């Protein structure tokens, strides 16, 4: 058994990883996080065991390389806390419903990660616990709490009938 061309990995998982980055980091940093993740993944790819869960591997890299580190770096780079929030650049893909964005971004950071890894990347709670730390049970509870909060805070726009 051997590794398929990396192009296949990008084609199969690129969109999912971007959705995860988008949900956890918000629109401003999602694309940079995606780029950093896939470049790191390409570097490490020849050493990946062919029977690995590729999506879990990518989310792990995204988490370590980008999602966890990114905010810290941004905080370090922007010591002034009251800088006005810059609007997302136009080339970042936009959500049709900003209310969902607001609701997701309002979740506590770790809860937002667990919810994204579970409900966007479809990872098992075992994989999620390995990525974010803590127990499987804690990850499960965190995801349940996050989704419950979203159901409460996110009211979808009325779709035209």
């Amino acid at each position, binding site marked *: 058994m*051997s*590794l398929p061309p990396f192009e296949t990995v990008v084609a199969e998982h690129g969109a999912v990883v971007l959705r995860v980055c988008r949900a956890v980091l918000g629109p401003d940093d999602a694309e940079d996080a995606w780029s950093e993740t896939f*470049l790191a993944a*390409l570097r490490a790819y020849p050493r990946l065991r062919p029977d690995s869960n590729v999506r879990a591997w990518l989310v792990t890299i995204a988490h370590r390389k980008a999602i966890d580190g990114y905010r810290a770096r941004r905080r370090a780079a922007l010591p002034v806390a009251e800088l006005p929030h810059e609007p997302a650049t136009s080339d970042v893909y936009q959500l049709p419903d900003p209310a*969902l964005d607001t*609701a997701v971004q309002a979740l506590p950071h770790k809860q937002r990660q667990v919810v994204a890894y579970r409900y966007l990347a479809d990872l098992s709670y075992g994989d999620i616990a390995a990525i974010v730390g803590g127990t499987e049970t804690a990850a499960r509870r965190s995801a349940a709490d996050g989704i419950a909060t979203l159901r409460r805070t996110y009211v979808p726009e009325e779709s035209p009938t």
Partner: protein
Amino acid sequence: MNPLTALPDPDRATMQRLHARLVEAAAADDTLDLVYRTVDTPLGSLLLAATPAGLVRVAYESQDHDAVLATLADRISPRVLRAPARLDTVARELDDYFAGRRHTFELPLDLQLAHGFRREVLTHLRDIGYGSTASYAVVAAATGRPKAVRAVGTACAVNPLPIVIPCHRVVRSDGSTGAYVGGVPAKQTLLDLEAA
């Protein structure tokens, strides 16, 4: 249903932009071991693949592009990305060749997929000029192994760079076309093109 299902999939343009960015970053980082694209020709779609050293593979559609890419990932490196722009020069030279405007390819080649005697045969094939042909026996003699006629046939059959390394110019001693990696009709088309 969880509320996140309302998050749409990124659009195609976004994914294409990110892909292009990845190709650029990977090339700058020296982690892009293999790039590929396809090009449309009168002989159908051709797969082109290159390493940083040069063009390493040309494959006909009948050879199954996906299977060829899987083999390349296995034999050279799995760090493979589709990067059409990085193979623009190759595509242009092939266009010119099929239009009859180009008789020789000026491309860096990476012969790492051919070994030993087969590789030696490839270097001799490059001496057969546009519009001319040589028999398997003549090529065998040129390599210094006149009895290796069959081995020359095999080397042609597994030529990793058909068209660019002109194995189509090797024909039977009786003048008949002989076999070809892209099928006999393709070989005839190339010979006719070069005879025009």
